[in-house]
Protein backbone atom coordinates (compact mmCIF):
# COMPACT_ATOMS: atom_id res chain seq x y z
CA UNK A 1 0.00 0.00 0.00
CA UNK A 2 2.86 2.32 0.85
CA UNK A 3 4.38 1.66 -2.57
CA UNK A 4 1.07 2.15 -4.38
CA UNK A 5 0.40 5.41 -2.54
CA UNK A 6 3.86 6.69 -3.49
CA UNK A 7 3.30 5.52 -7.05
CA UNK A 8 -0.01 7.39 -7.20
CA UNK A 9 1.71 10.49 -5.83
CA UNK A 10 4.32 10.18 -8.55
CA UNK A 11 1.75 9.82 -11.31
CA UNK A 12 -0.42 12.69 -10.07
CA UNK A 13 2.54 15.10 -9.92
CA UNK A 14 2.84 15.67 -13.69
CA UNK A 15 -0.91 16.25 -13.81
CA UNK A 16 -0.60 18.83 -11.06
CA UNK A 17 2.23 20.47 -13.00
CA UNK A 18 0.02 20.72 -16.05
CA UNK A 19 -2.61 22.43 -13.93
CA UNK A 20 -0.08 25.07 -13.09
CA UNK A 21 0.44 24.03 -9.50
CA UNK A 22 4.19 23.85 -9.97
CA UNK A 23 5.30 25.11 -6.63
CA UNK A 24 3.12 22.83 -4.56
CA UNK A 25 3.94 19.65 -6.56
CA UNK A 26 7.63 20.48 -6.59
CA UNK A 27 7.67 20.83 -2.86
CA UNK A 28 5.83 17.50 -2.49
CA UNK A 29 8.12 15.51 -4.83
CA UNK A 30 11.41 17.12 -3.93
CA UNK A 31 13.29 15.54 -1.09
CA UNK A 32 11.07 12.45 -0.88
CA UNK A 33 13.54 9.57 -0.75
CA UNK A 34 10.85 6.86 -1.23
CA UNK A 35 9.60 8.14 -4.54
CA UNK A 36 10.10 5.38 -7.15
CA UNK A 37 9.26 5.99 -10.80
CA UNK A 38 6.59 3.69 -12.16
CA UNK A 39 8.83 2.19 -14.85
CA UNK A 40 11.38 1.07 -12.24
CA UNK A 41 8.67 -0.57 -10.14
CA UNK A 42 7.29 -2.32 -13.20
CA UNK A 43 10.77 -3.61 -14.16
CA UNK A 44 11.47 -4.86 -10.66
CA UNK A 45 8.05 -6.53 -10.53
CA UNK A 46 8.62 -8.19 -13.89
CA UNK A 47 12.07 -9.48 -12.92
CA UNK A 48 10.66 -10.75 -9.63
CA UNK A 49 7.83 -12.55 -11.44
CA UNK A 50 10.24 -14.13 -13.92
CA UNK A 51 12.51 -15.29 -11.12
CA UNK A 52 9.57 -16.68 -9.15
CA UNK A 53 8.34 -18.54 -12.25
CA UNK A 54 11.81 -19.99 -12.82
CA UNK A 55 12.08 -21.11 -9.19
CA UNK A 56 8.62 -22.69 -9.43
CA UNK A 57 9.53 -24.48 -12.65
CA UNK A 58 12.85 -25.76 -11.17
CA UNK A 59 11.01 -26.97 -8.06
CA UNK A 60 8.45 -28.84 -10.18
CA UNK A 61 11.24 -30.52 -12.18
CA UNK A 62 13.08 -31.48 -8.99
CA UNK A 63 9.89 -32.97 -7.56
CA UNK A 64 9.27 -34.89 -10.79
CA UNK A 65 12.86 -36.19 -10.73
CA UNK A 66 12.46 -37.36 -7.14
CA UNK A 67 9.35 -39.27 -8.12
CA UNK A 68 11.26 -40.96 -10.96
CA UNK A 69 10.09 -38.84 -13.92
CA UNK A 70 12.97 -37.74 -16.16
CA UNK A 71 12.88 -34.16 -17.51
CA UNK A 72 12.64 -33.91 -21.29
CA UNK A 73 14.18 -31.49 -23.77
CA UNK A 74 12.14 -28.26 -23.75
CA UNK A 75 13.66 -25.62 -26.02
CA UNK A 76 12.63 -22.12 -24.90
CA UNK A 77 13.04 -18.51 -25.97
CA UNK A 78 15.91 -17.88 -23.57
CA UNK A 79 17.92 -20.64 -25.25
CA UNK A 80 17.42 -18.94 -28.61
CA UNK A 81 18.40 -15.61 -27.06
CA UNK A 82 21.66 -17.16 -25.78
CA UNK A 83 22.46 -18.11 -29.36
CA UNK A 84 22.62 -14.42 -30.26
CA UNK A 85 24.95 -13.41 -27.44
CA UNK A 86 28.72 -13.19 -28.07
CA UNK A 87 29.43 -15.72 -25.32
CA UNK A 88 33.04 -16.27 -26.39
CA UNK A 89 33.85 -12.55 -26.15
CA UNK A 90 31.94 -12.24 -22.88
CA UNK A 91 33.94 -15.16 -21.46
CA UNK A 92 37.24 -13.64 -22.61
CA UNK A 93 36.28 -10.32 -21.00
CA UNK A 94 35.32 -12.13 -17.78
CA UNK A 95 38.65 -13.96 -17.82
CA UNK A 96 40.49 -10.67 -18.38
CA UNK A 97 38.59 -9.07 -15.49
CA UNK A 98 39.20 -11.98 -13.11
CA UNK A 99 42.85 -12.14 -14.12
CA UNK A 100 43.53 -8.63 -12.73
CA UNK A 101 45.91 -8.68 -9.81
CA UNK A 102 44.17 -7.75 -6.57
CA UNK A 103 45.81 -5.73 -3.76
CA UNK A 104 47.11 -8.15 -1.13
CA UNK A 105 44.74 -6.86 1.58
CA UNK A 106 41.69 -7.35 -0.71
CA UNK A 107 42.51 -10.95 -1.68
CA UNK A 108 41.20 -12.81 1.40
CA UNK A 109 37.89 -10.88 1.24
CA UNK A 110 37.45 -11.43 -2.50
CA UNK A 111 38.32 -15.14 -2.36
CA UNK A 112 36.12 -15.72 0.69
CA UNK A 113 33.21 -14.00 -1.07
CA UNK A 114 33.77 -16.21 -4.12
CA UNK A 115 33.93 -19.33 -1.96
CA UNK A 116 30.73 -18.33 -0.14
CA UNK A 117 28.90 -17.62 -3.40
CA UNK A 118 29.83 -20.94 -5.00
CA UNK A 119 30.08 -23.17 -1.90
CA UNK A 120 33.81 -23.89 -2.12
CA UNK A 121 35.53 -25.51 0.81
CA UNK A 122 38.21 -23.09 2.05
CA UNK A 123 39.67 -25.61 4.49
CA UNK A 124 41.25 -27.63 1.70
CA UNK A 125 42.83 -24.70 -0.19
CA UNK A 126 46.54 -25.35 -0.72
CA UNK A 127 47.93 -21.86 0.01
CA UNK A 128 46.98 -18.89 2.23
CA UNK A 129 44.30 -16.82 0.43
CA UNK A 130 46.55 -13.77 0.06
CA UNK A 131 48.90 -15.87 -2.11
CA UNK A 132 46.33 -16.05 -4.93
CA UNK A 133 46.92 -12.84 -6.84
CA UNK A 134 43.62 -12.92 -8.74
CA UNK A 135 40.25 -14.67 -8.80
CA UNK A 136 41.49 -16.56 -11.86
CA UNK A 137 44.38 -18.00 -9.86
CA UNK A 138 42.06 -18.87 -7.00
CA UNK A 139 39.57 -20.65 -9.31
CA UNK A 140 42.20 -23.17 -10.46
CA UNK A 141 43.84 -23.49 -7.04
CA UNK A 142 45.69 -26.61 -5.94
CA UNK A 143 44.48 -28.39 -2.84
CA UNK A 144 46.34 -29.36 0.31
CA UNK A 145 48.33 -32.60 0.17
CA UNK A 146 46.04 -35.48 1.01
CA UNK A 147 42.82 -33.55 0.38
CA UNK A 148 42.00 -35.88 -2.52
CA UNK A 149 43.34 -39.39 -1.79
CA UNK A 150 43.81 -41.40 -4.96
CA UNK A 151 42.10 -44.80 -4.99
CA UNK A 152 45.03 -47.20 -5.08
CA UNK A 153 43.12 -50.31 -6.21
CA UNK A 154 44.73 -51.29 -9.56
CA UNK A 155 41.36 -52.55 -10.83
CA UNK A 156 39.64 -49.22 -10.35
CA UNK A 157 39.00 -46.32 -12.67
CA UNK A 158 38.97 -43.11 -10.64
CA UNK A 159 37.12 -39.86 -11.15
CA UNK A 160 39.29 -37.31 -12.97
CA UNK A 161 37.46 -34.31 -11.43
CA UNK A 162 35.26 -33.14 -8.59
CA UNK A 163 31.63 -32.82 -9.67
CA UNK A 164 28.21 -34.36 -10.11
CA UNK A 165 27.69 -37.50 -12.17
CA UNK A 166 25.18 -36.66 -14.92
CA UNK A 167 25.27 -39.86 -16.95
CA UNK A 168 26.94 -43.26 -16.82
CA UNK A 169 26.38 -46.29 -18.98
CA UNK A 170 27.47 -48.56 -21.78
CA UNK A 171 27.49 -47.44 -25.39
CA UNK A 172 25.27 -49.69 -27.44
CA UNK A 173 24.87 -50.09 -31.22
CA UNK A 174 23.91 -46.49 -31.88
CA UNK A 175 26.98 -45.19 -29.95
CA UNK A 176 24.90 -42.35 -28.56
CA UNK A 177 25.05 -40.58 -25.20
CA UNK A 178 21.79 -39.23 -23.79
CA UNK A 179 21.90 -35.50 -23.03
CA UNK A 180 18.36 -35.46 -21.69
CA UNK A 181 15.38 -37.76 -22.06
CA UNK A 182 14.41 -37.81 -25.72
CA UNK A 183 17.62 -36.27 -27.02
CA UNK A 184 21.03 -37.91 -27.53
CA UNK A 185 24.25 -37.00 -29.31
CA UNK A 186 26.70 -39.30 -31.04
CA UNK A 187 30.07 -40.03 -29.50
CA UNK A 188 31.76 -39.47 -32.86
CA UNK A 189 30.43 -35.90 -32.99
CA UNK A 190 31.77 -35.29 -29.49
CA UNK A 191 35.21 -36.84 -30.06
CA UNK A 192 35.60 -36.00 -33.75
CA UNK A 193 35.06 -37.80 -37.04
CA UNK A 194 38.71 -38.93 -37.07
CA UNK A 195 38.37 -40.46 -33.64
CA UNK A 196 40.20 -43.69 -32.82
CA UNK A 197 36.98 -44.96 -31.24
CA UNK A 198 36.74 -48.72 -31.93
CA UNK A 199 33.27 -48.78 -33.42
CA UNK A 200 33.29 -52.57 -33.70
CA UNK A 201 34.68 -54.61 -30.83
CA UNK A 202 37.35 -57.15 -31.82
CA UNK A 203 35.92 -60.70 -32.09
CA UNK A 204 36.31 -62.90 -29.01
CA UNK A 205 37.19 -65.96 -31.12
CA UNK A 206 38.53 -66.44 -34.62
CA UNK A 207 35.58 -67.26 -36.86
CA UNK A 208 35.91 -67.46 -40.62
CA UNK A 209 32.15 -67.13 -41.12
CA UNK A 210 32.25 -63.56 -39.78
CA UNK A 211 34.18 -62.08 -42.68
CA UNK A 212 32.08 -58.95 -42.90
CA UNK A 213 32.51 -58.23 -39.21
CA UNK A 214 36.26 -58.79 -39.45
CA UNK A 215 36.46 -56.42 -42.36
CA UNK A 216 34.77 -53.68 -40.34
CA UNK A 217 36.92 -54.40 -37.30
CA UNK A 218 40.12 -54.22 -39.28
CA UNK A 219 38.95 -50.90 -40.72
CA UNK A 220 38.51 -49.33 -37.31
CA UNK A 221 41.69 -50.86 -35.94
CA UNK A 222 43.59 -49.74 -39.02
CA UNK A 223 43.10 -46.18 -37.84
CA UNK A 224 44.53 -47.05 -34.45
CA UNK A 225 47.51 -48.82 -35.96
CA UNK A 226 48.35 -45.69 -37.89
CA UNK A 227 48.43 -43.67 -34.70
CA UNK A 228 50.43 -46.08 -32.64
CA UNK A 229 53.03 -48.58 -33.87
CA UNK A 230 52.62 -50.43 -30.58
CA UNK A 231 49.03 -51.29 -31.47
CA UNK A 232 50.03 -53.08 -34.67
CA UNK A 233 50.90 -56.04 -32.50
CA UNK A 234 47.29 -56.24 -31.33
CA UNK A 235 45.82 -58.60 -34.00
CA UNK A 236 48.49 -61.26 -33.36
CA UNK A 237 47.91 -61.17 -29.59
CA UNK A 238 45.92 -64.04 -28.01
CA UNK A 239 42.11 -63.71 -27.96
CA UNK A 240 41.04 -61.31 -25.23
CA UNK A 241 37.65 -60.92 -23.56
CA UNK A 242 35.09 -58.80 -25.38
CA UNK A 243 35.51 -55.15 -24.55
CA UNK A 244 32.49 -52.96 -24.08
CA UNK A 245 32.48 -49.19 -24.50
CA UNK A 246 31.39 -47.21 -21.47
CA UNK A 247 30.88 -43.51 -20.81
CA UNK A 248 30.62 -41.17 -17.87
CA UNK A 249 29.61 -37.48 -17.86
CA UNK A 250 30.64 -35.36 -14.86
CA UNK A 251 29.52 -31.74 -14.37
CA UNK A 252 31.65 -29.26 -12.40
CA UNK A 253 29.95 -26.35 -10.63
CA UNK A 254 31.85 -23.03 -10.44
CA UNK A 255 32.84 -23.77 -6.84
CA UNK A 256 34.34 -27.20 -7.55
CA UNK A 257 38.05 -27.95 -7.69
CA UNK A 258 38.77 -27.17 -11.36
CA UNK A 259 41.82 -29.30 -12.16
CA UNK A 260 41.58 -32.44 -14.28
CA UNK A 261 43.56 -35.56 -13.39
CA UNK A 262 44.29 -38.84 -15.13
CA UNK A 263 41.67 -41.52 -14.29
CA UNK A 264 44.04 -44.47 -14.93
CA UNK A 265 47.54 -45.21 -16.21
CA UNK A 266 47.31 -44.54 -19.94
CA UNK A 267 49.16 -43.33 -23.03
CA UNK A 268 47.76 -40.24 -24.73
CA UNK A 269 48.12 -40.51 -28.50
CA UNK A 270 46.12 -37.60 -29.90
CA UNK A 271 44.82 -34.23 -28.77
CA UNK A 272 41.93 -32.59 -30.62
CA UNK A 273 40.73 -29.02 -30.01
CA UNK A 274 37.24 -28.04 -31.16
CA UNK A 275 36.65 -24.31 -31.34
CA UNK A 276 32.97 -23.88 -30.54
CA UNK A 277 30.37 -21.99 -28.63
CA UNK A 278 30.39 -21.40 -24.89
CA UNK A 279 26.87 -22.14 -23.75
CA UNK A 280 26.32 -22.64 -20.02
CA UNK A 281 26.26 -26.30 -19.01
CA UNK A 282 24.01 -26.21 -15.92
CA UNK A 283 20.96 -28.45 -15.61
CA UNK A 284 18.59 -25.88 -17.08
CA UNK A 285 20.76 -25.42 -20.18
CA UNK A 286 20.96 -29.20 -20.61
CA UNK A 287 17.15 -29.29 -20.69
CA UNK A 288 16.71 -26.40 -23.10
CA UNK A 289 19.68 -26.35 -25.53
CA UNK A 290 20.28 -29.17 -28.02
CA UNK A 291 23.77 -30.55 -28.70
CA UNK A 292 25.40 -28.62 -25.86
CA UNK A 293 28.45 -30.83 -25.56
CA UNK A 294 28.90 -31.14 -29.30
CA UNK A 295 28.69 -27.40 -29.95
CA UNK A 296 30.78 -26.10 -27.05
CA UNK A 297 34.50 -25.43 -27.05
CA UNK A 298 36.33 -28.58 -25.98
CA UNK A 299 39.60 -30.44 -25.86
CA UNK A 300 39.62 -34.19 -26.45
CA UNK A 301 42.47 -36.51 -25.46
CA UNK A 302 42.52 -40.00 -26.95
CA UNK A 303 44.77 -42.92 -26.17
CA UNK A 304 45.13 -46.44 -24.84
CA UNK A 305 45.05 -48.01 -21.40
CA UNK A 306 45.43 -51.62 -20.31
CA UNK A 307 41.84 -52.45 -21.28
CA UNK A 308 41.86 -50.70 -24.65
CA UNK A 309 40.57 -47.37 -25.84
CA UNK A 310 40.33 -44.31 -23.58
CA UNK A 311 39.14 -40.76 -24.36
CA UNK A 312 38.64 -37.77 -22.12
CA UNK A 313 36.76 -34.68 -23.34
CA UNK A 314 37.00 -31.43 -21.35
CA UNK A 315 34.02 -29.29 -22.41
CA UNK A 316 34.19 -25.56 -21.67
CA UNK A 317 31.24 -23.39 -20.62
CA UNK A 318 30.32 -19.69 -20.39
CA UNK A 319 33.18 -17.83 -18.68
CA UNK A 320 35.18 -21.09 -18.40
CA UNK A 321 36.33 -21.46 -21.99
CA UNK A 322 40.08 -21.47 -21.47
CA UNK A 323 41.03 -25.10 -21.13
CA UNK A 324 44.65 -25.56 -20.09
CA UNK A 325 46.62 -28.73 -20.76
CA UNK A 326 49.63 -29.21 -18.53
CA UNK A 327 50.90 -31.86 -20.95
CA UNK A 328 50.83 -29.23 -23.74
CA UNK A 329 51.33 -25.78 -22.22
CA UNK A 330 51.24 -24.07 -25.62
CA UNK A 331 47.61 -24.91 -26.28
CA UNK A 332 45.25 -21.92 -26.16
CA UNK A 333 41.47 -22.18 -26.38
CA UNK A 334 38.71 -19.57 -26.79
CA UNK A 335 40.93 -17.30 -28.87
CA UNK A 336 39.30 -14.58 -31.02
CA UNK A 337 38.26 -16.01 -34.36
CA UNK A 338 39.85 -14.56 -37.48
CA UNK A 339 37.02 -15.77 -39.69
CA UNK A 340 33.37 -14.93 -39.18
CA UNK A 341 32.32 -18.41 -40.29
CA UNK A 342 33.22 -21.11 -37.82
CA UNK A 343 35.59 -23.70 -39.20
CA UNK A 344 34.29 -27.22 -38.66
CA UNK A 345 37.64 -29.00 -38.66
CA UNK A 346 39.18 -29.41 -35.20
CA UNK A 347 42.87 -28.79 -34.63
CA UNK A 348 44.56 -32.12 -34.09
CA UNK A 349 47.96 -33.00 -32.72
CA UNK A 350 49.43 -36.50 -32.63
CA UNK A 351 51.79 -36.81 -29.68
CA UNK A 352 55.11 -38.30 -30.70
CA UNK A 353 56.35 -39.75 -28.49
CA UNK A 354 53.13 -40.71 -26.71
CA UNK A 355 52.44 -38.94 -23.42
CA UNK A 356 52.41 -41.44 -20.56
CA UNK A 357 50.14 -40.49 -17.69
CA UNK A 358 49.93 -42.18 -14.32
CA UNK A 359 46.69 -42.49 -12.37
CA UNK A 360 46.13 -39.20 -10.53
CA UNK A 361 48.57 -37.11 -12.60
CA UNK A 362 47.45 -33.56 -13.33
CA UNK A 363 46.36 -33.31 -16.96
CA UNK A 364 44.78 -29.88 -17.22
CA UNK A 365 42.44 -27.30 -15.77
CA UNK A 366 39.32 -25.33 -16.62
CA UNK A 367 40.40 -21.72 -16.53
CA UNK A 368 38.34 -18.53 -16.63
CA UNK A 369 38.25 -16.75 -19.96
Amino acid at each position, binding site marked *: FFFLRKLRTATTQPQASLNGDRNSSGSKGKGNPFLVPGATVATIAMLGALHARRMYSDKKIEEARESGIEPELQPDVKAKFLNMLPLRSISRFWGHLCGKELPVWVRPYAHRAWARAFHSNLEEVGLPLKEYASLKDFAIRRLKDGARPINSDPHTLMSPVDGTVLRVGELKEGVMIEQVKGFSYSVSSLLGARSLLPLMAPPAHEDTSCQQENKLSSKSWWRISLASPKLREEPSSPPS*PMKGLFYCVIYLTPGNYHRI*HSPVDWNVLVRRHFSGRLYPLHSRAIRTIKNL*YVENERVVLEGRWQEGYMAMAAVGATNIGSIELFIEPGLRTNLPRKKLVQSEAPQERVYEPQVMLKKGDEVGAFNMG
Partner: protein
Amino acid sequence: STVVLVFQAPTTSPSSEFSFCVEKGDKIQMGEALGRWHQQ
Protein backbone atom coordinates in the same frame (compact mmCIF):
# COMPACT_ATOMS: atom_id res chain seq x y z
CA SER B 1 32.31 -27.14 -17.37
CA THR B 2 32.02 -30.86 -17.93
CA VAL B 3 34.27 -33.87 -18.42
CA VAL B 4 33.15 -36.82 -20.58
CA LEU B 5 35.03 -40.10 -20.33
CA VAL B 6 34.68 -42.82 -22.98
CA PHE B 7 36.59 -46.04 -22.43
CA GLN B 8 36.76 -49.75 -23.14
CA ALA B 9 36.44 -52.33 -20.38
CA PRO B 10 35.82 -56.09 -20.24
CA THR B 11 32.18 -57.19 -20.44
CA THR B 12 31.85 -60.80 -21.60
CA SER B 13 32.84 -62.78 -18.56
CA PRO B 14 30.88 -62.04 -15.36
CA SER B 15 34.07 -62.63 -13.36
CA SER B 16 35.83 -59.79 -15.14
CA GLU B 17 32.92 -57.53 -15.81
CA PHE B 18 33.30 -53.80 -15.38
CA SER B 19 30.71 -52.03 -13.25
CA PHE B 20 30.24 -48.42 -12.21
CA CYS B 21 30.47 -47.54 -8.50
CA VAL B 22 28.41 -44.37 -8.99
CA GLU B 23 24.92 -43.50 -10.18
CA LYS B 24 23.38 -40.54 -11.93
CA GLY B 25 23.14 -37.58 -9.56
CA ASP B 26 25.93 -38.71 -7.23
CA LYS B 27 28.49 -36.15 -6.12
CA ILE B 28 32.04 -37.39 -6.59
CA GLN B 29 35.51 -36.13 -5.78
CA MET B 30 38.66 -36.50 -7.80
CA GLY B 31 40.42 -39.76 -6.89
CA GLU B 32 37.29 -41.64 -5.82
CA ALA B 33 36.36 -44.81 -7.66
CA LEU B 34 34.11 -44.39 -10.71
CA GLY B 35 34.13 -48.03 -11.74
CA ARG B 36 35.72 -51.35 -10.89
CA TRP B 37 36.59 -54.59 -12.65
CA HIS B 38 38.12 -57.91 -11.63
CA GLN B 39 41.25 -59.53 -12.97
CA GLN B 40 40.57 -62.89 -14.63
